[in-house]
């Protein structure tokens, strides 16, 4: 059972094993029913491979990184930095362009804080109407502090971004454009490369919130042409407490650190300090070592499964779910009904029934969905909705799960009939 010390990095995942077998929690019974987990936009379940990698680290390699010259510390450092390389390769970046953070939220706060230092009064920051709070609030704060102007790219009736309006909103005063690649509410996939070109034409930087896209789509920062990409480990089979900020090296080099302390410094005197080189300049304090290793194991798991296969699987499930959900009277999908440019995230309303009641009754059937505003209150007010119920799928979900959801929703309607 126990692995040798260095196997942690080379663990291969057999692709023939049915996916469900890899996720122990999926066998859990909830209220006597088999768990149907449909809240993957909030967080995903962890494959055995990730759990094993982290357990292995704690049982055999645990030490602080970049500190000791003893064997254990060297091994921990190697595993931690190897994890960084695996993640860099996964998104087409270089080693020194990958900064470990706590998650997408911290990555975006880092950017708002560090890029914000250079903003001038009157500079403009452009976001979209479909952003998560974490890609709105940090910018609101920096805009207030620096007397900058926030602008939002509006939605079309089809729940996509209005690119024509984006071209007008983004102008020579725009310094930062920050948008999500996939909406956590609507499932809409945004045309990042096009937005990058619009932003770059006026010398603005393009930031991508990849929290929902990186786990589900092949994402390559070179192809996206983005300047920064933020994402979280726990939404892609990895642990909580670890996330990534990718940034173009040239941009990162010219940015001030976000947090100050250990690991991010080169030299400290009583009066002054100088910064470590990339990527450590942005990693203050002891990092989340086991979590970084867990995330790398998750990335390897996804790579072995194949990102293209995930896309194919989720497309099929999306077609199936949209068709099945459309048979429920009084159910309205808040998102595109077309398969192109949308992920397997289904927000919906049910006539006369609040999303929390929907979630509570579905829970009795062992079905986990999310109800509420999904940390996108501005979007909800734009759509004039108090909230939605959201089912979001991942690679381990099947048509059976969709069937369970549909049956569950019919039960919900019965309770309120």
């Amino acid at each position: 059972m126990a692995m040798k010390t260095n196997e942690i990095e080379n663990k291969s995942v057999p692709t023939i094993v049915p996916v469900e077998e890899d996720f122990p929690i999926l066998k859990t019974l909830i209220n006597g029913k088999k768990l149907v987990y449909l809240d993957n936009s909030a967080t995903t379940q962890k494959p055995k491979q990730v759990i094993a990698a982290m357990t292995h680290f704690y049982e055999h390699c645990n030490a602080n990184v970049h500190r000791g010259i003893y064997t254990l510390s060297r091994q921990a450092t190697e595993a931690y930095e190897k994890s960084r390389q695996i993640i860099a390769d996964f998104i087409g970046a270089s080693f020194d362009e990958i900064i470990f953070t706590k998650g997408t939220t911290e990555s975006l706060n880092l950017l708002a804080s560090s890029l914000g230092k250079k903003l001038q009064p009157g500079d403009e920051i452009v976001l979209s109407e479909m952003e998560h709070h974490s890609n709105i609030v940090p910018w609101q704060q920096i805009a207030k502090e620096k007397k900058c102007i926030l602008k939002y790219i509006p939605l079309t009736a089809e729940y996509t971004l209005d690119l024509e309006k984006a071209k007008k909103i983004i102008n020579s005063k725009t310094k930062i454009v920050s948008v999500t690649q996939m909406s956590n509410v609507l499932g809409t996939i945004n045309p990042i490369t096009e937005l990058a070109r619009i932003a770059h034409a006026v010398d603005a930087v393009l930031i991508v919130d990849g929290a929902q896209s990186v786990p589900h789509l092949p994402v390559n920062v070179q192809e996206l042409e983005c300047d920064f990409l933020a994402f979280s480990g726990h939404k892609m089979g990895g642990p909580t407490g670890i996330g990534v900020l990718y940034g173009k090296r040239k941009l990162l080099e010219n940015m001030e650190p976000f947090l100050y302390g250990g690991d991010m410094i080169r030299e400290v005197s009583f009066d002054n300090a100088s910064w470590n080189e990339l990527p450590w300049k942005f990693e203050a304090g002891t990092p989340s070592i086991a979590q970084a290793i867990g995330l790398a194991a998750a990335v390897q798991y996804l790579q072995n499964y194949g990102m293209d296969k995930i896309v194919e699987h989720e497309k099929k499930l999306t077609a199936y779910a949209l068709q099945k959900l459309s048979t429920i009277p009084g159910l309205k999908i808040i998102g595109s009904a077309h398969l192109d440019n949308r992920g397997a995230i289904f927000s919906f309303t049910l006539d006369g029934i609040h999303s929390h009641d929907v979630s509570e009754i579905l829970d009795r059937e062992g079905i986990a969905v999310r109800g509420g505003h999904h940390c996108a209150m501005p979007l909800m007010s734009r759509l004039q909705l108090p909230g939605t119920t959201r089912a979001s799928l991942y690679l381990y979900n099947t048509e059976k799960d969709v069937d369970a959801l549909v049956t569950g929703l019919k039960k919900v309607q019965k309770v309120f009939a």
Partner: protein
Amino acid sequence: MAEKRNEELIAESAAVINHPEITAAALTEQEEIYKENIIDHYKYPRNKKELSQYTCSRTESNPLCGDKISIYLAVDAGKITEISFQGHGCAISQASASMLTEHSKGMSLSSVASFTEKDVQSLLGIPLSPIRMKCAILSLKTIHKALEELK
């Protein structure tokens, strides 16, 4: 051997990972929160309107779920002569607003001010998890804030 040890450790960690009886059977009737009277108050809420004349009003929301309730109070000689509500929310928050307004009409300000979470729960007559308790007491919170404004 190793497996067994692991299980023992997990049992020991149960104090941290509160693992309730999730394998238990479906809810019993006593545990059911969507009882007939709750659904009735949700579908046909009493006093759900804006008063044409009121002494004070107050709006509160539950940031977690976006539920919003406005309370309108008409007061005379230390008593609530009319009370109504507006807003949106789940069955529990709407039913509790409906029941609570029905219950407090004609009562003295001081007795309404002394209503507690427990009173709301006994009005509803259902068991509530801590998270649903927040839905249930939104209207009570709003009434209390409105009463404070009267002082």
